[in-house]
Every structure is written in structure tokens, then in C-alpha cells.
């Protein structure tokens, strides 16, 4: 919707908007640019000296790569579990009448629980129960962090499933299961894919819970945190920059596709 506001307020609104986006994006993008500079001291590379040498050096960083591998495994496990459980939660939400507000709140609530407290609570309980910290315990911590986001994404994707479709199928004799498999599932599959990728990224990038729950093999953010605080090196910029870029591209593509379809 275009409006007819006076020039000065428009200018003011756009300036503040720009400041907000700059605050979110300028520092990580600067970090990304720095990672292409050959110098050891952080600074922008001049166009002639752009280099990938720090990215090449990543291949020799065994600790970082082992941590990345661990993080990817955990993220895949988390994403599978979060997508399936959120789908079930969303299906239940659709069928509910009176209590759906409460159900929504219960699924969303873990998003607001501070990571340190969630991590501490779960890790203390697991230790007391004699369960050793491992990739599985990190997944357990990440599951509830990813589920609220996956749940909301799947719930929005249900908007295209009209009740009339299901009723028509039911009139033609399709069972509930048949309706789900042949109508609902194909229609919401883009939402399921988005939910999977979102959960994957949330787990991959999660630090505070993993800090408490990781076993002998730390996850990537935990290793990065240690290295960031003990004299950052250009390879840290390269790894951070690469992870940031991959996350942005994944979400960007999904978000723009989903949003432009809706309008």
C-alpha cells in the first residue's frame, strides 16, 4: 500500500528503517568482507587483494571441521524431529476448537525460556539420571528451541488447505488418512521443507544450550566461542562469515518465495 505522506516524515521513517537494517546486517557483512582480506589485522581488502586463503586454511583446522561435522549431524537430527513433531502439533491445532489458544501457547512457550536455564536444567537432570552428554543430548536441547519456529511456519502453510477440499474428498469416500496423504500433505509440503531448513539452521547456530549439553565433541558455535575469546584469527572470520552467508541465503530464498506467493 503506497501512501501520500509528506516528504519529511517519509524521509524520517526511511532513515530510521535503514538504521535498523544496518544495525542487523552491516557488522556481519563487514566480518564477511574482512574474511577475504589477506592481512592478519581485520580490515577491508582492497579490490586487488581479495583472497580465499583463509577459507583454504579452514581445511587444516581439524578442531573446527570436527565441530562443524558434529553440528551438522545434530542439526539434521533436530530438524527431522522438530518438523515431524511440529506437523503433529499443527494438525492437532487445526482440529481443536476451544483449547487451541492454550495449545499454541504451550508449543510456543519454550522459545521464551532463556537458553542458559534450559541448558542447565536439562543437563543437570540428564547427569543425575546417569545419561552421558552426547550428540543426542544436544538434540534434546535444540528440539524445543526449533519447534516453535517450525510450528509457526507449518501453521501458516496450512492457510492454503481449504476445508472445502477436505469435505469434497470426504464426500467422495476418502478416509481421514487418505485426505491427509492426498490433499493436505502435498499442499503443505513447501511449509514442511521450510520448517526443516529453519530448524536445521536454528540448531546449527545455537550456542547457549549446546554449551551445557555438548559431550566430548563440542558443536561449532561452542568451539567458535572459545576461539573468539582467545585471540580471533582470520580463519575464525572465514568460518563465521561462511556460516552467516549460508544461513542468509537459505532463509532468504525460502522467505522471498513464500512471501511473494502469498501476495
Amino acid at each position, binding site marked *: *500500500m*503506497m*501512501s501520500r*505522506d*509528506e516528504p519529511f516524515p517519509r524521509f524520517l*521513517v*526511511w532513515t*530510521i*528503517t535503514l538504521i*535498523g*537494517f544496518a*544495525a*542487523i546486517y552491516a*557488522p*556481519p557483512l*563487514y*566480518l564477511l568482507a*574482512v574474511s577475504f582480506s589477506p592481512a592478519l*589485522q581485520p580490515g577491508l581488502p582492497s579490490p586487488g587483494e581479495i583472497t580465499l586463503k583463509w577459507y583454504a586454511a579452514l581445511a587444516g583446522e581439524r578442531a573446527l571441521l570436527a565441530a562443524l561435522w558434529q553440528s551438522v549431524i545434530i542439526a539434521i537430527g533436530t530438524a527431522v*524431529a522438530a518438523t515431524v*513433531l*511440529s506437523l503433529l*502439533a499443527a494438525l492437532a491445532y487445526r*482440529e481443536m476448537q476451544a483449547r487451541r489458544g492454550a495449545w499454541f*501457547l504451550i*508449543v510456543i512457550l*519454550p522459545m*521464551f*525460556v*532463556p537458553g*542458559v*536455564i*534450559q541448558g*542447565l536444567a*536439562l543437563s*543437570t537432570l540428564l547427569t543425575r539420571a546417569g545419561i552421558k552428554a552426547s550428540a543426542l543430548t544436544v538434540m534434546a536441547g535444540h528440539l*524445543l528451541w526449533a*519447534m516453535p*519456529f517450525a510450528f509457526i511456519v507449518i*501453521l*501458516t502453510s496450512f492457510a492454503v488447505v481449504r*476445508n472445502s477440499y*477436505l469435505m469434497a474428498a*470426504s464426500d467422495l469416500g476418502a478416509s*481421514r488418512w487418505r485426505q491427509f496423504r492426498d490433499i493436505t500433505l502435498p499442499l503443505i509440503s513447501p511449509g514442511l521443507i521450510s520448517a526443516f531448513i529453519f530448524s536445521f*539452521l536454528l540448531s546449527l*547456530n545455537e*550456542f*547457549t544450550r549446546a554449551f551445557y549439553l555438548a559431550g566430548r565433541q563440542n558443536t561449532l558455535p561452542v568451539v*567458535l566461542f572459545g576461539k*573468539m*575469546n582467545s585471540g580471533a584469527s582470520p580463519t575464525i572470520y572465514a568460518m*563465521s562469515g561462511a556460516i*552467516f552467508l549460508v*544461513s542468509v541465503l*537459505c*532463509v*532468504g530464498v525460502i*522467505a522471498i518465495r513464500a512471501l511473494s506467493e502469498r*501476495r
Partner: protein
Amino acid sequence: MKLPLSTLAGLMSAPALAIIAMGLAPLAVVVVWSFWAWDPSTYWIKPELSFAGYAGILEAGRWTVILSTFAKAFLTAAICLLIGFPTAYAVHFLASRRLAVVLLALMTIPFLTSYLIRSFSWRLVLGRTGVINTLLQDAGLTSAPIDWLLFSDFAVIVGLVASYLPFATFPLILAMQRLDPVAIAAARDLGAGFWTVQRTLILPLTISGVFAGFLFVFVMTLGSSTEVQMLGGAGASIVSVMINDVMRVANYPLAFAISTVVLAVVFGLVLLGNRAFGLSRLFEDRS
């Protein structure tokens, strides 16, 4: 077309079990344990009623960390609203459709990127040899680097705002989408200027979005830790970092007591907010 109750229970059971086993049960246990006494012989707690953990909050200036956490959360939420409201207005009222889609995508991305990397990258901007200090010195505005830019409360607030800004912007955009464009057009036709429309129409009608945005940022800041760990000064703390510090010496009762206080505030605020403006309505499809 009502689903039999057993099927509904079947759908709910797996997610509900996960939420209880990994979320609610551990938190409930922590709340109970916060009232148990420390047992030096086992390095663990024993089931004996004790308020030692809560007494510990009042010692060593720990309550000042809790107060300063609230102050940080309040300030961050207020700044996020000041930036988020114009942003939501720009996205909904000023931007063309295509630009609005791009801006909405740019607002979604930060939820899923690393808070750690984003906080860390501010070091390169605010540090002694960072972008801002270099620019200031090149422009001849200062002769020596400004020290308070990094490892200070200033840096922490900047990092927190950059981290949680989308939590304020989204509810505001959703609230503005529910506005009736006819009402605004009518106000314009009757001669109301930009500020009059904002004050008498848009702000009052989106006030639930304003409260929701404030609440989201406030609650997220209460639980934040990375921004302080990456950008705070030597003595800087926030409750989550304080819990980390307390756990380093395995002071379980104190860590549990602080956690319980924070959880009570967080859950209280979210439930209050939910009662006031129904969080699920924010995401309900309006098609």
C-alpha cells in the same frame, strides 16, 4: 467433520511428550531443587527445605545484576520499538509490494542466523581499531581511539538491539496489517497530517502490537547471554551470565534459585501478555 477425541489425543501425544520431557519437567525440577539444601558430603543437594539459594541472591551484589538486567531489557525494548515502529510503517505503508517482500525477508533472516557471530562481528566495528574509531580518526574528529565503544554497556545495548529488533518489528507489522485502510484514507481526506494520523489513529489501533513487541524483546533480553559475553566490559553481567558464573563453582542451589526467579518473571510476562492480546491471534491466518 469432527475428529474422534482419540485421534486428537494421538496427534498431540508425541509433541506434548517432547515438550514435557525436555522442557517443562526439567524446569519444574529446577524450581523444586531451588528449595533444597546443599549437601557438602555428596557435592549435591538433599531434599531438605532451605532458602539458602534465595538468600545467596541478596549477597555479593547479585540482586544488582538482576536489577541491571531489567534495566537493560527495558532500554533495549524501548529502542527496538523506536526503530521497529517506523520500520513496520515503512514496510506496510511506504514500500512497494516487491520491496515489502524483500524487507520482510530481511527481517525474517536474523531469527535464524547465529546470535554469536552477529554479536562477535560488532567487535570489528566498535573496537579500538574498528570501523567507527578508524573513521572518526580519519575524519580528524578524535585524535585517539574512543575506548567506551567496545566492552561497555553501550556495546551491549547496541548488540542487544541488533539481535532482537525483529522481535519488535514483526508484531507491529502484523498489527498494521489489521488496520482498516479506509479509516486512514478518510482521516487524510479530512486534512489530517502525518503526525496527526500517527497519534490519533495508527498508534492507538496498533497498541497491542506495540505491547507485544515490547514484551518479546524484553523477555528475549532477560534470557540473553552472548551479547554480554562478546561485547560487555570486564565486570559486565546479566542474569544468564551470572548463572554461568555461579555454575562454574557448582553452586547448584544458587543457580537454581536465580533460574527460578527469572523463569517466574518470563512465564508471568508471557502469560500476562497472552491474556491481554492472545499470542495465537498474531499468527492466525487472516485469509
